[in-house]
């Protein structure tokens, strides 16, 4: 299949890009890495009338750390993979990256494009939710910030307004004595996950868990945050019994949609197993 005709607008500055989006609104899509958008256009599942190419906007590309890590929306996955600082401070991102498609896709795909696309099977939305990231949105008229938790509305749906662009992702660093782990099960390397989990726990001075976050990809219409399961871990040490209980709570909370490779009960089972493994690994890393 070939894409339907569209008008191509190349943006040389952020202001140009935002002005074009204000003009064309819903009719237009930003073209970032294009690794999700172009396949849907090739299938004519998406037929935007206008593409605004934001690849020239180097101002949106890069990683800076100063107490928090600020990642420009146009930062490509390969740049995240190559960044030693990310590996040091936010190792869970590095742990998840090899699961995202293939090297050729990661050479082109961007973090901002991925989050804006909001595929529920995708890894980074769950990771950003687990890391409590803040997403910066801009329009020609205004700027706002939104917590990752409030950003995803449904499958392929976010709170981004027709005149807005996601420009930056700000990730707080984990407290001392934190451990994080990302795991997923997919049929083949690089395929969409049957289920994936990001687990982050923090060990207090007395050896108990003081903070826990458990998020999932591939098992709901949005990245899924297992609140009750995470809360159940706080106040005690993360023992095998505590892990088992948290996994049971997470499985209870999950209502996976199922897909052609895994029915809902199997997805729930895999999510439970991953919860136990990822929590044990994350706690061992604290």
């Amino acid at each position: 299949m070939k894409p339907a005709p569209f008008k191509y607008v190349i943006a040389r500055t952020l202001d140009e890009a935002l002005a074009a989006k204000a003009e064309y609104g819903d009719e237009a899509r930003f073209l970032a890495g294009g690794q999700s958008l172009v396949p849907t256009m090739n299938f004519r599942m998406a037929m935007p009338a206008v593409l605004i190419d934001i690849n020239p906007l180097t101002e949106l590309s890069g990683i800076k750390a100063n107490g928090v890590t600020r990642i420009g929306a146009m930062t490509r996955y390969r740049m995240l993979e190559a960044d030693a600082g990310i590996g040091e401070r936010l190792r869970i991102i590095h742990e998840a990256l090899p699961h995202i498609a293939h090297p050729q896709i990661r050479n082109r795909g961007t973090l901002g494009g991925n989050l804006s696309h909001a595929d529920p099977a995708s890894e980074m939305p769950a990771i950003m939710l687990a890391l409590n990231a803040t997403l910066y949105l801009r329009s020609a008229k205004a700027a706002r910030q939104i917590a990752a938790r409030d950003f995803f509305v449904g499958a392929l749906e976010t709170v981004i307004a027709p005149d807005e662009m996601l420009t930056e992702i700000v990730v707080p660093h984990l407290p001392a004595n934190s451990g994080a782990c990302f795991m997923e099960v997919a049929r083949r390397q690089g395929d969409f996950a049957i289920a994936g989990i990001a687990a982050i726990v923090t060990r207090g001075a007395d050896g108990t868990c003081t903070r826990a976050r458990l998020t999932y990809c591939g098992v709901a219409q949005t990245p899924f945050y297992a609140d009750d399961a995470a809360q159940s871990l706080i106040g005690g040490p993360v023992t095998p019994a505590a892990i088992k209980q948290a996994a049971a709570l997470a499985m209870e909370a999950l209502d996976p949609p199922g897909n052609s490779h895994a029915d809902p009960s199997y997805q729930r089972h895999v999510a439970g197993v991953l919860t136990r493994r990822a929590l044990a690994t994350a706690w061992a890393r604290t």
Partner: protein
Amino acid sequence: MTDSHTIAVTVNGVRTEKSVEPRLLLSDFIRHELMLAGTHVGCEHGVCGACTILFDGFPTRSCLMFAVQADGHEIATVEGLSKGETLHPLQQAMHDSHGLQCGYCTPGILMTMSAFLDSNPSPDEHAVREALSGNLCRCTGYQHIVDAVLLAAERMRT
């Protein structure tokens, strides 16, 4: 009516200028406008890897980019891999190790793995298989391709 854009692209070291419609995929531009049919088109949604080229030096799916985006950039295709009659060491190793049967996936594999070898001169089998994971081959079962990449790595080191 669709608009058209004039683009200047350097392909295998040669600069060319063409007028393209925005919706023209880079893969189709390479095959139908530049008449370089070595770049193959398989799935057209980024899964099979047959259309892999180097875009500014990085292996990239040419079916997931528009030709118009290549304006001012450099592209390398399989046609630029050999030096005249002398095959690239990876091409030679693919031949020696029987790394291809029907050959449809081969150009994409050559572009992916030649770039991989440039940045990983001493890979182990696991790294080769991981780098190869974005290229589907339905004939070989991959074993001989892995053998070829390891053989090429060895020859390129000496």
